């Protein structure tokens, strides 16, 4: 009986000491979680797979992102990330010729690789949608995007049954300075690629898509955050794994510690 009380007292003492050290020591001691290869971080990251699975189960594949009234367009679309990749020679050349020689290529796990000029894309059935762009930083901006449905374009290349993801290759390069420049790329599963609101956007707010927002083509995946809307896209590659691109995480920001799904 007295032993029992003693052990309880000791337990309480340990508990109080542990709690106070946690509170008083500040939070530098959790900085190890910033290390992308830390095993504890990698364990915590598995919650992202749970989120992806839960959203795929909870969100019907065809469920639409909200579309807004024209009166909700109250400002220009705020540009973020790369806003002028003319430091990349290939892209500078495209801008100089007003994208006359631009081709969007569909490659990878397809029966017939195809490519389209900007005019060809503009002549395909168009879709306009006024949607909200949600940046991972926390801000939102409503704008009207015009383009052609990605799914219909992919179908023209006849995807193979082994295709699982679409990888979007872009002209712009990130980093530089101390680190080597890395080409921006992104990827999505085929549910997002074939979503009815997923478009190859060439128009923004009833004008041609400006350079700062991704000219000539930007992918809109409306049920995902801003970093999943790659700009300056030149090639879409269907793959069964994105291990061989960048650091193998499915996108530039994913290679820098952000989660891949991007739906939350």
């Amino acid at each position, binding site marked *: *009986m007295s032993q*029992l009380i003693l052990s*309880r007292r000791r*337990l*309480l003492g340990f*508990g*109080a000491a542990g*709690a106070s050290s*946690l509170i008083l020591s*500040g*939070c*530098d001691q*959790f*900085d190890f*979680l*910033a290390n992308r290869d830390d095993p504890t*971080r990698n364990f*915590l*990251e598995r*919650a*992202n797979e*749970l*989120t992806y699975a839960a*959203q795929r189960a*909870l*969100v*019907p594949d065809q*469920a*639409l*992102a*909200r579309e*807004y009234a024209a009166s*909700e367009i*109250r*400002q*220009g679309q*705020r540009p973020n990330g790369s806003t002028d990749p003319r430091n990349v020679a290939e892209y500078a050349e495209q801008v100089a010729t007003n994208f006359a020689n631009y081709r969007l290529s569909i490659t990878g796990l397809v029966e017939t690789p195809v490519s389209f000029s900007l005019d060809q894309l503009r002549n395909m059935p168009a879709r306009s949608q006024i949607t*909200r762009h*949600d*940046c*991972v*930083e*926390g*801000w*939102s*901006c*409503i704008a009207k995007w015009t383009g052609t449905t990605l799914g219909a374009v992919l179908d023209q290349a006849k995807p193979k049954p082994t295709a699982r993801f679409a990888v979007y290759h872009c002209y712009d390069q990130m980093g530089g300075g101390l680190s080597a420049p890395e080409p921006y790329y992104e990827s999505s599963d085929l549910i997002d690629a074939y979503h009815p609101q997923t478009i190859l956007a060439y128009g923004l707010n009833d004008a041609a898509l400006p350079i700062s927002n991704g000219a000539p083509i930007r992918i809109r995946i*409306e*049920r*995902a*955050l801003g970093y999943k809307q790659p700009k300056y896209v030149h090639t879409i590659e269907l793959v069964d794994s994105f291990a061989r691109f960048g650091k193998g995480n499915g996108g530039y*920001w994913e290679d*820098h*510690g*952000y*989660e891949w*799904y991007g*739906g*939350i």
Partner: protein
Amino acid sequence: MTDQAADSIPIPAQGKPKGPLVYRQSIFTRLTHWIWVVALFFLLLSGLQIWNAHPALYIGEQSGFAFDNTVFSIGAENSDQGVRGFTTIFGQKFDTTGVLGVSELRGRQNFVGFPGWATIPSSRDLATGRVVHFFFAWILVATLAVWLVASLANQHFWRDIVLKPRDIAGLPKDLAAHLALKFHHGRSYTPLQKLSYFVVLVILFPLIILTGLTMSPGMNAAWPWLLDVFGGRQTARTIHFGVMVLLVLFFVVHIAMVLLAGPFNELRSMITGYYRASPGTPPDVKEMSK
């Protein structure tokens, strides 16, 4: 429960008479309590990290860059006295240099919303903040589900959380007693305690979870009503932040009450389940609501 009978024998008075040790907190209440302590700690500090990526709050669907719908923001500006940190609440601007806007991190000036000591990690790292936040968000949701099922099953919810008419009538008296720092230790909670735990568990926890989900573009497609209920994504973000502030306030009052009401007894009840009730509390009879 062999020790309960022994504990219940009143100890001969040396000064004040002692009440009986009563079994007050079930294993589910205790376990979920401590899991929440850990989860909310990480959620708060990773949440402030995420917020620092865009330290402004708005009303409506979008963030006004070309128009003004900002209700709260933290920033840094150049001034005659160097860079100063400013916090703006509904247009009222306060100099918060040293804590908000401009602070110090490892001996260097740090231009961030919340200071490094309040974020995980201490330096700016949105990606890591999100990894930590979403992991513990799942823990919070799962723990709340376990708590709800267990508390409905073992009557804790009905007995200790839901306010009955008698509790509502007793609120003013209990408030006066708390303000006078006179605490009654019963088997169940006092009306004010019931009200606090009801607000936190039944209102604030679900509210912070749902406003969090409202910020998810994926969930917006599945449950578009979230946007209507909370008045747009940016309003939901503002409410999410506001609920965080309320939970921090609850934490401060909660700790103060534990210290004032007898930290040893309070901690013992939340670890072992046993609580030293006020003298006169019946040791064995099941007490419904004091």
